[in-house]
Structures are given as C-alpha cells and as structure tokens.
C-alpha cells in the first residue's frame, strides 16, 4: 500500500478571497471549494492513468506568482493587450463570464482560476486582421528554489477578426511548475492560428480552452520539445454552425521525459469540421501519451471529424500510450480516427544509406521529415521557419540536414 497523496500543491489555497470584483471572488471560491472537496488527480484518476501526477501534486514549491506570460512582440494595429488586474480594477464587467472555462474547469485549471495573480487579455476588434503575430513568452528565470507559476491568458476575437498567436513556455530549471490556462473566445467568422511551443525542463500543466462561434476557424499547432513532465489539454467547443478547428501537434521525447497530450473537440452545432493530427517521436526511456476525444452532439448533423495519432519509437525502452476515440450521437456524420505506433521504415533507411548517406544522417532526415509535415501547415512562414529550426536543434545531427524538406 502506497502512502496517500499529500496534495501539497493545495496547501497554498486561501480559505477566502478578498480582492477583485464579486463575481471573480465567487468564481475563485467555487474553484477552491471544489479542489478541497475533490482534491487534485491521483494515479487512479482515469485522465491521468499514464502520467505520474503525484510528482506534481505532492511537490513542494516556494510560492511565486509572478511568472506570468509576457508580451515579446510589437502590437499590430487593432490589437489591444491589457493586464488582467488592470481591467479587473477599472472595468471588471468586461471580463465577467469570460474566465470560467465554460463552467467546466479541470482540476489544474480550477487551481489556476483560484490562484492566478494577474495575466493578459488580448483582444482583436471586429474586422481587424492582425498584420503580424502576437508573441507571448513565459521564460522562467533560474532561481534557487523551484517555484510554481499560474500564467493566465484570455484571447478574444471579434467578428471576422484574425490573429496569429505564438506562445513559448520555457524553463531550464528542474522541479519548476507552470500551470497555465489560456481561454480563447472566437466571434463569428473569426480566424485564429495558435502556435504553442513547450521547451521545458521542469513540470508543466497547460490548458487551452476554445469557444467558437459560427463560421470561425481555429488552428492549433503544439510543438513539445521534451520536458520532465508535461500535460497539455486543448479543448474546442464548436458552438456555432460551420465552425472549424484543426488541432495539430508534434512531440519529440527522449531521455526520461514524459509528455501527455489530450485533445477534446465537442461538436455542438451542425456543419462543423474538426481534424486532429498529432505526430511524435519517442526515444531513450521517454514516454508519450495521446488521448483524443471527439464528441458529436445529437443536433450536430453534417459533422466532419477526423483524428490521427502517429508515433515512431526509436528505442526498445520508449513507451507510447495512444487512445483516440469518438462519441457520436448524431447520425449524419463523417468521422474517422486512427493511431499507429511503429519504428522507422527500414526500406527508406536502406534506400538513403545505399546512396551513400551515413546512417545517423539518414535517421535524422527521416525523423525530421516525419515531424516537419505538421509544422509545414503553420500559415506564417517566419513561424514555420522557427519551428523547423527548433526541431532541427533537438534532433541528433539536425544541424547537418537543414533544407532536407
């Protein structure tokens, strides 16, 4: 019998919330009550079966709330970025009903809701097409004792607005925890491309929650480049007719790193389309988990939903758990899902070597090509190029195969 989870992470939950507008105090209070009542996940929690959540839940952190994501790019016209605290003080009504994750926060998102101290609100006004991407970065400084941060970002796009958002979460410090929440609200016909890079030596739990009005489009590209323990959830609620989302991801896991990606797409309205493509390479003693769910509600006729997860295992000691699944309550739908776990194609490897290409370079070419096809779909060339460079930097001999695709 193992010792019961100590839930150290909950120790910093206050018993009452005294600042901010009434609705926020109530929101935080409900989140805290629920956490005290139910606790954080344990290894018996279904959604955390394959991920050692205890190393997060029972860890000791020196409290540090100031690790909020910061803006690192210039602001294009028509885009405003404000600190959440400033808005909560001056115009709290603007945020009411927008920080509650659609009423269904997961454990860690509830913890963020209870404890986030400031954050950013990015707003793109109706009809504005942001000419350049917005870049946010949470880079945790090296410090003597690992801390925990609760980054919080709200993104709102008005009708027919368009934005590319690039987020980078990076930390070189082992033991550091980042528990982030990004909420996205897309107005009618709004389009957003969201690139998110995880380059974290520490612990990371992240959640992106997207609500989509009619005819809106959301494209997510997640690039996970290792991490001691990463858990990332993206949830898209297709609430308006004709909305579309594309959730893509690549992960490159080695050493003893662990990455757990969950996706959830809910088709709540008819004529929506969703597609998910996650690809990963796992080597060393690394572990990757993919859990993807598509739920098609009864009224969501003419839904089209696709889901695919492909994995390459490069060592006998690497592990992949993959579970794509569909729950369909409508009858007029086109849905597909599939998962593969395999090793590199021996025919391809031999072909390259038979032409004189050394084995290590041939391996680099094939692994890079496998992942690059996902990055290649990002609709912003400088970002694509940066993602390519990031992959090349992580792949052994990557710097010798630049330009292979």
């Amino acid at each position: 019998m193992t010792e019961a989870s100590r839930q150290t992470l909950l120790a910093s939950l206050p018993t009452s919330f005294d600042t901010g507008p009434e609705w926020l105090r109530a929101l935080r209070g409900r989140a805290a009550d629920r956490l005290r009542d139910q606790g954080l996940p344990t290894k018996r929690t279904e959604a955390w079966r394959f991920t050692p959540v205890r190393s997060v839940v029972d860890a000791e952190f020196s409290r540090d709330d100031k690790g909020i994501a910061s803006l690192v790019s210039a602001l294009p016209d028509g885009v405003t970025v404000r600190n959440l605290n400033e808005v909560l003080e001056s115009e709290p009504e603007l945020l009411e009903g927008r920080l509650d994750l659609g009423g269904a926060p997961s454990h860690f998102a509830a913890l963020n809701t209870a404890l986030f101290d400031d954050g950013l609100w990015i707003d793109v006004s109706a009809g504005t097409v942001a000419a350049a991407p917005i870049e946010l970065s949470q880079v945790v400084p090296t410090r003597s004792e690992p801390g925990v941060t609760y980054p919080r970002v709200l993104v709102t796009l008005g009708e027919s607005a368009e934005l590319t958002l690039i987020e980078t979460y990076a930390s070189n410090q082992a033991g550091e925890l980042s528990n982030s929440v990004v909420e996205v609200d897309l107005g009618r016909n709004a389009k957003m491309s969201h690139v998110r890079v995880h380059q974290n030596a520490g612990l990371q739990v992240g959640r992106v929650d997207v609500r989509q009005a009619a005819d809106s489009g959301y494209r997510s590209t997640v690039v996970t480049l290792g991490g001691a323990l990463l858990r990332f959830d993206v949830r898209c609620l297709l609430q308006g007719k004709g909305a579309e989302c594309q959730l893509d991801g690549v992960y490159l896991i080695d050493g003893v790193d662990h990455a757990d990606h969950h996706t959830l797409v809910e088709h709540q309205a008819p004529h929506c389309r969703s597609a998910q493509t996650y690809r990963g390479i796992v080597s060393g003693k690394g572990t990757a988990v993919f859990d993807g769910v598509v739920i098609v509600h009864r009224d969501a006729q003419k839904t089209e939903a696709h889901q695919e997860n492909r994995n390459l295992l490069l060592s006998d000691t690497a592990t992949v758990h993959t579970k794509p699944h569909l729950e369909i309550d409508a009858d007029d739908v086109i849905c597909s899902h599939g998962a593969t776990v395999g090793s590199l194609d021996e025919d391809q490897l031999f072909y390259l070597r038979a032409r004189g290409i050394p084995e290590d370079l041939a391996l680099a070419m094939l692994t890079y090509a496998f992942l690059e096809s996902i990055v290649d779909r990002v609709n912003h060339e400088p970002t694509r190029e940066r993602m390519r460079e990031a992959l090349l930097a992580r792949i052994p001999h990557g710097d010798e195969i630049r330009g292979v695709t």
Partner: protein
Amino acid sequence: MLKIEDLHVEVDGKPILKGINLEIEAGQVHAIMGPNGSGKSTLAYALAGRDGYEVTKGRVIYKGEDLLEMAPELRAAEGIFLGFQYPVAIPGVSNIYFLKAALNAIRKHRGEEPLDAIDFMKLSKKKAALVQLSDELAKRSVNDGFSGGEKKRNEIFQMAMLEPSLAVLDETDSGLDIDALKVVAEGVNALRGPDRAMLVITHYQRLLDYIVPDVVHVLIDGQIVRTGNKDLAKQLEKEGYTEVRDALQP
C-alpha cells in the same frame, strides 16, 4: 573490379543463393537472367549490404577489398550503386536535397570538396535531361507520387549524378512500356565507359536488346547454371528457363 566467390546468402534462415561465382572487369556489362524466385534481387541486395541478407559462406572482393565488411553507405561511397526494382517513396525528404547529401557524402569520402548549390544545380539539370526527368519531379519528395516509369528514370538520374564504378541494376525494365524502356536504356548506355562496370538483372531478354551485355549469366535456384554471350539471352527468350534448366539435368 568485382569478384564473387562461392557466395551463399540466407534470408530469414532460408538459403537463397547457393554458391555464386562471378567476375566482372571494368568496362564490362554483365547481365543476370533468371525466373522469379531464382535469387536475382537477393544478389543485388547482398552486394548493396542490406540488413537481413546474411552471407553464410563465400566472399566478395571489390577493387581488392572485402566488400562484405562494409556498411551500405561505405559501399556506395566506394562506388557501388544499386538501382532498385521498387524504389521506395520518402515523403518529406526532397529528391534534390537527398541527392546532394548523397553526392557530397561520396565526395567527402573521396577527399573532394562538396559541390556548392549552383554547381550542383547545373550538374543535376544536365543529368536530368539525360533521362528526360522534369525539374519539377527532381524537386519533389523522393519518389513520392512518382509513376512506375518516373521512379525508374529517377534511379538512372541518381546513377548519372553519383557516377558509380559498379552499377547493379535490379529489374530496371520492370513496369516500363517500350518508350520508357528506351529512355532508361539510353540513359544507362550513356554511362557505359572503360572505368565502369554494370550488372544488369532482368527477367526478360527485351532490356538486353537496348543494353547489350558483354556476358550473360543464367541464375536458377540460387546458382549460375550457364554463362555465355548475348546470344544466350536470345536462346533463353526462345526456349524458356524450363528448357535451359531441364537441359542441365543429368
């Protein structure tokens, strides 16, 4: 250039080649003909160094060195080229990048400077014209979405770029119509020269009308049962492998 002595090769524990003896001089073109399952492709793969083709007996001397000790990439760098019967598609790896990497790896092995982008493009344009391979195809992913004929032309294009000493062409004619066959054969003939040897593997005599061999070997059940000049190919075409085999029975 190449001396194969009593070569025995097993695949998955099953003997396929059962004592091959063969010697090829520089400047010669040898043809190996044989029915399906006789071991033709096994010989090609064994020479190129593919995993899973286990040499249980015999040796292969190439330019005075023990070929069987070399990794596939070293064999290529030493001038061996395998034209694949079924060239594999490699989505995401550009044909032209791959070929540049291959050529420069081989040049490096020879102690030569890498070709820069401009010289490489000039060379590849010239060589692609040899087999009428369009620029557009050369830039795509390796063999990805290529027709059967395009794949085979791509093989000969690569051979022309890499300028091997010994080319092993495994059923380069399979799946080609007569026009494509002529294009491929012309490409091969353009590369014949006093310093280069070729081993042309084929099921049908047809290819040998266009690539005329100096020596023809008949491979049946893992052994070379007859060796002759180009007329042997014609005789095979007329009589079939069965007759040739039966004629050998004691």
